[in-house]
């Protein structure tokens, strides 16, 4: 099978259409299994009671939020390097899903924080990093929507994604550093207790489910982007107008 032919958006479009249902179905099934294990099978935590169970959503969402940012930056880099339209479309399609997972991680973090720390928001190092990551996702998306010219929008947001991906680890480190200086929250989610095998299993299943969900949603979004850009009059294979374009006198 020659995969390179799918790098053309038109060839990719039907392939994506065929793949989406499979990813979606498996994602939903795994999510069901993971949530069941997390909420009903996994043992109650002796320190934090039942409230810890939100980590089965929180931790996978936080992982995905960072992972997707890196994937987005990789697509952006590939797009810049190879000047490939589909890569830019992938980067564009990933941003909203990544932002959604970042937001989900923040939301579930707050839900966990209230019973644990007694406050909806604590300047915990991880939560703060997630918040800044959300700002960066917002930056990528806002930059894209502010630029009318599609080519420039693609390339500018690609540059910003790449700058961001260099910055994310630095930000993470600096926030950790800041947190130790200011002696932030002492209870941290992953160190709360030793993890039972079922807990780890449930978390991994949820991560895989989120992964497949992201693929399905991103593919669907890329299809929309292809249609959106494709409908522009210029972008078809035959010359748009059969005119004599240049004549040398």
């Amino acid at each position, binding site marked *: 099978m020659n995969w390179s032919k799918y790098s053309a958006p038109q060839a990719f479009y039907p392939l994506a259409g065929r793949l989406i249902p499979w990813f979606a179905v498996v994602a939903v099934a795994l999510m069901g299994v993971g949530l069941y294990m997390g909420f009903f099978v996994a043992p109650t935590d002796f320190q934090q009671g039942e409230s810890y169970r939100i980590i089965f959503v929180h931790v996978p969402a936080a992982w995905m939020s960072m992972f997707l940012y890196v994937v987005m930056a990789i697509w952006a880099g590939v797009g810049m390097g190879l000047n490939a339209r589909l890569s830019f479309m992938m980067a564009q399609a990933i941003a909203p899903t990544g932002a959604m997972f970042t937001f989900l991680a923040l939301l579930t973090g707050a839900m966990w924080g209230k019973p644990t720390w007694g406050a909806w928001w604590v300047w915990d190092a991880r939560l703060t990093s997630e918040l800044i990551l959300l700002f960066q996702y917002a930056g990528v998306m806002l930059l894209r929507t502010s630029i*009318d*010219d*599609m080519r420039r929008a693609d390339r500018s947001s690609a540059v910003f994604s790449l700058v961001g991906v260099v910055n994310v680890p630095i930000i993470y480190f600096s926030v950790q550093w800041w947190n130790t200086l200011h002696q932030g929250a002492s209870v941290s989610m992953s160190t709360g207790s030793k993890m039972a095998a079922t807990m780890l299993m449930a978390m991994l299943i949820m991560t895989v489910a989120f992964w497949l969900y992201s693929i399905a949603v991103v593919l669907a979004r890329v299809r929309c982007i292809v249609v959106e850009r494709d409908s*522009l*009059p*210029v972008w078809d294979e035959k*010359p*748009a*107008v059969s*005119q*004599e*374009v*240049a*004549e*040398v*006198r």
Partner: protein
Amino acid sequence: MLQAVGLSCRRGERRLFSDLNVKVEPGTLLAVVGENGSGKTSLLRIFSSLLPPEEGSVLWDGQDIHQLKELYAGQLTYLGHLNGIKDDLTPLENLMSATSLAGEPCSNNGAKEALEAIGLKRPIHHLPSKVLSQGQKRRVTLARLWLSTRPLWLLDEPFTSLDAASTSVVTQRLLAHVQRGGLAVLVTHQEVALPAERLQHLRLAG
């Protein structure tokens, strides 16, 4: 030799031209003509390497200009439709900073002579450029042609807002350039008064 091979260009949603082939030999000038919006300026920007073509390539002595990069920039003088003149600097300062940035620094006297050659008298040299007229500013920009030793000149509407006398001075300068074996590409609405054997036209259809 400057050569365009199978160039096509799209701006936003409009395809401006496609599969454009043209050759500019040393000692000749290519005048790009056509209606507004036909892609003349885009073509010049593609030649300058500012704008990558959608398809095709531009070759300088047989090599792709996007591979030559800075080497190609060292071959050309590009004057766009914007003057790049700072209102707060004098014509003399503007000219000297532009040439030193381009890597062809000139002496104070050299700059003054260039300005005089294009008809800007000495008292004007030390006024802030904001008091100059549009045509005078254009002339400050064009004075660079008297200081340029680069083989390839790319000029976007050089005659805009110039009077008849200045137009003919600039034309004389262009003639001297091509007679020395230089190349030039001009985007223009006006006829260029050069001998026919040195002049080639490219008409872009809108």
